C-alpha cells in the first residue's frame, strides 16, 4: 500500500477536525478526497505530509511511519498545499530551480517528468510567479511539486477557484502523471471531479461517509432518482419542498433531483400533484445518481 491511514483523529481545542479516519491507497492509484471546505481535508493532508501530529491513530506513506520516519517521507513525497505557495517575487524558472536544488536534483535530470506540464509555462519562464494567471500558477506549482520525482504526490485542493477549462486541463495532466507510476492523493470540493478518480473518499465534518470507486458509490444510491422540471423553477422547488412524499429535492442544473419517501412511488403521482399546483411543461424522468446526490444523501 502506498498510503495507509488507521483510525486517525485530530482535534483543535474543542473542534474535532478528523474523527476516526481510515483509508488505504494502492500504489499508482489516483485517490480523491471529496468534501466541502471545513470537512477536514487539509488536516488529513498535513498529517500525511508530516506537518501535523494526529491525536490518535497511525498512518504510513510509502511504508514510512508519519511520526517516526518523518524525514524519509519528506524525501519521498511531493506536496502542493491548498494556497498558492510559491515565491511570488521569484521568476517561474527560479522557483523551479530552487525546489530542484533543495531536493538535491536539477531541472535537467527530471525534465521528462514535468515536460508535459512545464512546456505550457516555459514561454513565461522569466516572468515573476506573482504575475501569472491562476491556471499558470497551478501548473508551476505542480511542476515544483514534481521536480524531485516523488513516489507519492499530495495535492490539496489544486483546482479550487480555478475555471472549468483550467480544471479540465489539470485533471488531464494528472491522468498522464498517473501513468508514470506516481501515486496521487488529491482533494477537491468539486463533486464532478470525483468521477475522474480511481477511488474516492467522501468526507464531511471530519468523518468519512464512504470509500469506493466512483461507479460503486453512484450505484450505492439507495433510492430511485427522478429529474423534474417545469416552466417555473422557483415555484417547483417550493412545491416539491411541501409535497408530502418528498424525501429530497435538490436543484441540479436545469432539473430538480427528486426522491420519494415511498418505495412504490410512481412518477404519475408527482405529475398530478404538480398539475394541481398549476405547473406547465412538466417533465419527470428517471435518472442516474451522481456522486453529489450520494454525498448529499449520506451527509443529510
Amino acid at each position, binding site marked *: 500500500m502506498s498510503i495507509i491511514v488507521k483510525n486517525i483523529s485530530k482535534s483543535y481545542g474543542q473542534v474535532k477536525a478528523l474523527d476516526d479516519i481510515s483509508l488505504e491507497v494502492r500504489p499508482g492509484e489516483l485517490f480523491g478526497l471529496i*468534501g*466541502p*471546505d*471545513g*470537512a477536514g481535508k487539509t488536516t488529513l493532508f498535513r498529517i500525511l505530509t508530516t506537518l501535523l501530529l494526529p491525536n490518535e491513530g497511525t498512518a504510513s506513506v510509502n511504508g514510512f511511519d508519519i511520526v517516526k520516519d518523518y524525514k524519509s517521507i519528506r524525501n519521498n513525497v511531493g506536496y502542493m498545499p491548498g494556497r498558492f505557495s510559491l515565491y511570488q517575487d521569484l521568476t517561474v524558472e527560479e522557483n523551479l530551480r530552487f525546489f530542484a536544488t533543495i531536493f538535491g536534483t536539477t531541472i535537467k535530470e527530471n525534465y521528462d517528468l514535468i515536460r508535459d506540464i512545464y512546456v505550457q509555462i516555459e514561454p513565461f519562464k522569466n516572468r515573476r510567479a506573482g504575475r501569472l*494567471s*491562476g*491556471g499558470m500558477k497551478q501548473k508551476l506549482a505542480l511542476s515544483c511539486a514534481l521536480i524531485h520525482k516523488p513516489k507519492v504526490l499530495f495535492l490539496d485542493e489544486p483546482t*479550487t*477557484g*480555478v*475555471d*472549468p*477549462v*483550467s*480544471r*479540465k486541463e489539470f485533471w488531464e495532466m494528472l491522468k498522464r502523471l498517473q501513468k508514470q507510476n506516481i501515486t496521487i492523493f488529491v482533494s477537491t*470540493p*468539486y*463533486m*464532478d471531479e470525483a468521477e475522474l478518480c480511481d477511488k474516492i473518499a467522501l468526507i*464531511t465534518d471530519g468523518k468519512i461517509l464512504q470509500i469506493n470507486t466512483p461507479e460503486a458509490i453512484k450505484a450505492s444510491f439507495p433510492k430511485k432518482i427522478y429529474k423534474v422540471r417545469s416552466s417555473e*423553477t*422557483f415555484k417547483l*422547488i417550493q412545491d416539491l419542498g411541501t409535497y408530502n412524499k418528498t424525501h429530497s429535492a*435538490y*436543484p*441540479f*442544473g*436545469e432539473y430538480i433531483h427528486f426522491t420519494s419517501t415511498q418505495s412504490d412511488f410512481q412518477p404519475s403521482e408527482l405529475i398530478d400533484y404538480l398539475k394541481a399546483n398549476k405547473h406547465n411543461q412538466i417533465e419527470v424522468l428517471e435518472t442516474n445518481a451522481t456522486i*453529489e446526490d450520494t*454525498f*448529499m444523501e449520506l*451527509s*443529510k
Partner: protein
Amino acid sequence: MKAANAIQVKNLTKTFGEFTAVNNISFHVGKGEVFGFLGANGAGKTTAMKMLIGILKPTSGKAQVANYDITSHANDVKKNIGYMSQRFSLYNDLTIKENITFFGGIYGLKKATIKTKTQALINDLGLHDEANKLVGSLPLGWKQKVAFSVSLLHDPQIIFLDEPTGGVDPITRRQFWEMIYREAHKGKTIFVTTHYMDEAEYCDRVSIMVEGKIEALDSPKNLKTQYKVDSMNQVFLKLARNIE
C-alpha cells in the same frame, strides 16, 4: 435606454497600460433577472464587476446601474446595490449581531430598523444559538448565507455576488441558491459569478467572457442548443478552449 433594465452596459472598456482587461463589452440585465457572469480566470470578469459596482473607472464606454451612471454617480450606484464576495464578506472577529449592526450602520439605517432587521435575519436563517458567536467560528456555508443576508440589509435593487458558493458544501450551496431565487422572485436583480457550471444552469441568462470580450450571451437553454451540447459545462469548455 430602457428604464426597465437594472444594468445597462454600452461599449465598456478598461485598459491597464498595454493590457486590455475588458474589451468593448455591451449587455443589459433586466429587472428581476438572475444573470450569470461567467468566464475563465483572467478573462476580465472581476475588472468588469468592479466597474459596475462603482469602484473602478472605465477607460471608455458607459454603464448604468440602477439607473445611475457608474462614472458620474458612483455614490448613488453604491447606495442602490448590495455586494458580496467570496474573499471578503464579514468580519471574522465580530459576532453575527455585531456584523449586522456594523453593516446596517454604514448604510445609514436607523437603530430601530437595524434591530428589527437583525431579528428578522436571525429568524430566517435559524441562527438563534449562533447570533452572539464570532463569525469566524461558523462553517463557511453559514457564513456565506449570513453575508448574503447582510448585503440585502439596505434593501438594494441589485445584488452583485462574486463567487459566493466557492468551497461550500453541496446542500448549503443549494440552500444558498434558494435564497437567491427568493430574492429574484421579490423583484431583485441578481448578478452572479461562479465556477460551478451547474449553477450557471440556474440563471435566467448567462454571459461568457473570454479574453475581455463577451463571447456568448443567452439563456442556458438557448446556449446549449446553439452549441449542440447538453450542459453548460460543455458550452463553457467549447467557447473558452477554442480561443486558446
